[in-house]
């Protein structure tokens, strides 16, 4: 096992890359993938700290996070399909139906 801090720093870098992706991309599906990247960075933190502290609760939490991510993927992609049927586009800048 490597040093704990190296895992945490990798996780921080991946989380920041995910944040940048969510902020700069226009395509809603790519934004969605960046959110998955951020969730995975958090999962890495959970597993590394669980191994370090000798407590398996963190890995059970990762399991639940994966379940929530799967549910989120299904509903989010359904929303994108519904939006594409209306607007013929999935750019977030075209989401302006409720804009004042």
């Amino acid at each position: 096992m490597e040093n704990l801090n190296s895992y945490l720093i990798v996780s921080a870098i991946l989380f920041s890359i995910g944040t940048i992706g969510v902020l700069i991309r226009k395509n809603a599906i790519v934004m969605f993938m960046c959110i998955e990247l951020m969730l995975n960075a958090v999962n890495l933190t959970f597993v590394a700290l669980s191994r370090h502290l000798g407590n398996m609760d963190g890995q059970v939490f990762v399991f639940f996070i994966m379940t929530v991510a799967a549910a989120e993927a299904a509903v989010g992609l359904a929303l994108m399909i519904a939006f594409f049927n209306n607007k013929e586009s999935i750019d977030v800048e075209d989401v302006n139906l409720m804009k004042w």
Partner: protein
Amino acid sequence: MLTTLFFAVITFVAIVSAILVITCKNPINSALSLVMTFFCLATYYVMLDAPFMATVQVMVYAGAIMVLIVFTIMLLNIRVDATKKYTHKIVLGSIIGFFTLINTVFLLLKSRVALPTGPYNGEMIKQIGNTEIIGREMFTNFLLPFEITSILLLVAIVGAVIIAKKKL
């Protein structure tokens, strides 16, 4: 020494593919880079003595969720317009992301992690097995959240079908 080298290689691949996710113009390329990142994370889980988590990572994330995403991209058949911009507010977004990185790394370097308190050390995990420990925890201490998860999945199935339907 060899472990450190391996860790460095995996980290390099993970970060490069994560950057490719946010820079590729075509969503399919982003999705494939994301699969690469997920495999790197599965490798980290193996290095952290959590083989069950690595398997679930590959099957659920790299398998199920990415198939769903790639399927949606291909179903919608989005044309990549070469002239159209695919990003916005790059400078502002990069600054915010950079500050997130500085903040977290600063916090990590300045803080001290607690000493091991739980019962499972490396020897014990190898002896009992990661899967058995997780199974025991999940069906004793975490039984109620586990059952609630099933309701969440049911709601997600019904919601996805209703939202994606054209006419109710």
